[in-house]
């Protein structure tokens, strides 16, 4: 993956992680390389079992790579035990120490680093303020709510001022509203502390809203790294397009290819402009993805055409599911303006107009 210049906090180079031995060997990570920049909110996104947590645990030091290097500001940390890495983790289960108070939990890391008492107290007070938990400092961790435990876990991991903060699906145990609040809170904390965050999640919405950059993972490999916009608008592989948001896939033939731009002919015979995923190997056929909101349904002639099957009203927008003439399905999302009448009904014959900047050719 190419990287724009800028200081890298973490560089993962050719890391493999194999669990088990012999016949029962499973590669949880299959030669992964990625660079994470300083002060970046970087997200590892993928379904469960894709290796995202394994990668996080390798960076934290709970597991050791079978092959490859993990560099932290140029130093290979792969062989170091977790307590010798200036990296802290917010655990999915929070893993707060039940036999300590909130303040003792937050101060634990500093205490282990052998900081003087006065410094620890000052830093704990500062952290409590940062996560707005001043009043609950003396409470036991069992006496506070899930959202509060989450804040304590964050404060505890931030207190020793790590170079990189690792977050393992920290919001998954919270209810929807609290999760939304914590997403904003996390962004604020990252901004205020200036620490590099590596965030693991399987929630695409969380990834899109919070991250500076996202790495989409599947089956132990990183498929694509890019800004949320890149990932969403220009997915490189079918998996990425499918995993994030809703997508229409169309088969097409390549007419002309010019770097990252191409002209393709759809089955309907229409020719459209498309962008090309990096690493695409032209062999005539291609799969094109079009996001539902990037296409438009019209009453007249479009690039492709079909019959409306269902119209689903979502409040903010309406989804029109169309059965194309070749039997495939295609979804168009239209924003609802106030007072606008539903433009289509079941059975209507419609054309679909695909804009010049709407289609992306996948590499697989």
């Amino acid at each position, binding site marked *: 993956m190419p990287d724009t210049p800028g200081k890298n906090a973490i560089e993962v180079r050719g890391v493999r992680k194999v669990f088990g031995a012999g016949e029962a060997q499973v590669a949880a990570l299959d030669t992964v390389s990625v660079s994470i920049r300083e002060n970046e909110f970087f997200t590892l996104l993928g379904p469960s079992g894709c290796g995202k947590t394994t990668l996080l645990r390798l960076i934290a030091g709970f597991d050791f790579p079978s092959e490859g290097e993990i560099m932290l500001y140029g130093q290979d940390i792969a062989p170091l035990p*977790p307590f010798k890495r200036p*990296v802290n*983790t917010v*655990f999915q289960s929070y*893993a707060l*120490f039940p*036999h300590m108070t909130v303040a003792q939990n937050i101060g634990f890391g500093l205490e*282990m680093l052998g900081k003087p008492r006065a410094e620890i107290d000052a830093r704990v007070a500062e952290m409590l303020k940062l996560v707005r938990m001043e009043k609950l400092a003396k409470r036991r961790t069992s006496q506070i709510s899930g959202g509060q435990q989450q804040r304590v876990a964050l404060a505890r991991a931030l207190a020793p001022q790590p170079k990189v903060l690792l977050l393992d699906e920290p919001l998954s145990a919270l209810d929807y509203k609290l999760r939304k609040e914590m997403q904003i809170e996390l962004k604020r904390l990252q901004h205020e502390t200036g620490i590099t965050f590596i965030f693991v999640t399987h929630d695409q919405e969380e990834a899109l809203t919070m991250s500076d950059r996202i790495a989409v993972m599947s089956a132990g490999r990183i498929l694509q790294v890019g800004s949320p916009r890149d990932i969403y608008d220009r997915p490189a592989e079918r998996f990425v397009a499918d995993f994030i948001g809703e997508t229409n896939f169309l088969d097409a033939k390549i007419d002309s290819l010019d770097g990252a731009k191409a002209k393709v002919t759809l089955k309907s015979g229409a020719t459209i402009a498309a962008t090309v995923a990096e690493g695409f190997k032209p062999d005539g056929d291609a799969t094109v993805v079009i996001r539902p909101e990037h296409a438009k349904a019209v009453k007249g002639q479009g690039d492709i055409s079909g019959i409306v099957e269902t119209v689903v009203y979502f409040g903010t927008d309406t989804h029109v599911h169309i059965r194309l003439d070749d039997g495939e399905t295609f979804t168009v999302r239209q924003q609802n303006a106030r007072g606008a009448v539903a433009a289509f009904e079941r059975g209507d014959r419609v054309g679909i107009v695909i804009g010049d900047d709407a289609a992306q050719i996948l590499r697989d």
Partner: protein
Amino acid sequence: MATAAEIEKQAEQREIRNRWFLSAPALLIIFLAASGPLVIVLIYSFLTPGPYGDVVWKFSTDGWMSVFLERDIFDDTLSFASAHITIFWRSLKLALMATVATLIFGFPTAYFIATRSERTRDIWLFLITIPFWTNLLIRTFAVLQVIRNEGIINTALINLGIVNQPIQMLYTDFAIMVGMVYVYLPLMVLPLYASMEKLDFRLVEAGYDLYASRWQVLRRIIFPLVRPGVIAGSILVFIPAIGAYVTPSVLGGGKNMMFANLIELQFGQGRNWPLGAALSITVMAIVMVALLVYVRNTSGSETRHG
């Protein structure tokens, strides 16, 4: 008309009545089997010894006097029963040492088992309980075979040229210790394992993540969290250890008596049942005091979890 609250209260009272009714047989057995004999022992300790053992029903405090004091047979003066004190001290010391030793050996053992996969854990636990299948006396004689002068250890040491003559291990306090550690180790491992199995090992990872070294994780995280198991295991080992009879008689060889041997002596050759009874109650008192002190000192506020 009865209100909902009244009905609920009646139901609650009925519940309490039923509870007493159902537990009555158990309470009766506990009372008869545990408290009854204790009362008899207490009464016997205040009676006069009979000429051929047993007691004469005449009140006397001589039994209790001779627990700590002894009367000189020539001039009738009283002095400290130093022999008894020595035995008390040895019992207490050996029981404490055995408890600490089983804890030192049992802790890593329990940790090892608790960190195995679920299936192999059962196998390890099964192996731990195997010694229970053999009679205590036989196991104790097995230890004797190992540590006696012609035993495997000494033979090996001599053959390897490390020592010229056998090290006297049998019939020492050390022998009693070894025997007790061997016999009581499972009693320490099992409750420790029960505590450790419940331990959330993610907390251990969190400890490492927050710069705690292995020793600090053990001391600051694992130990406080498994403390209930440590307490239970220590109690389970200390109580039988302080009252151990077979182990000191086989491995201590008569001259290194412990409490139980002393008591047995009074009821047997000594023909002094009141003294034996008084000694028995003394042991109980020592055990109870020791436990109270121990539990109070170890169950700090940090143990209340889960």
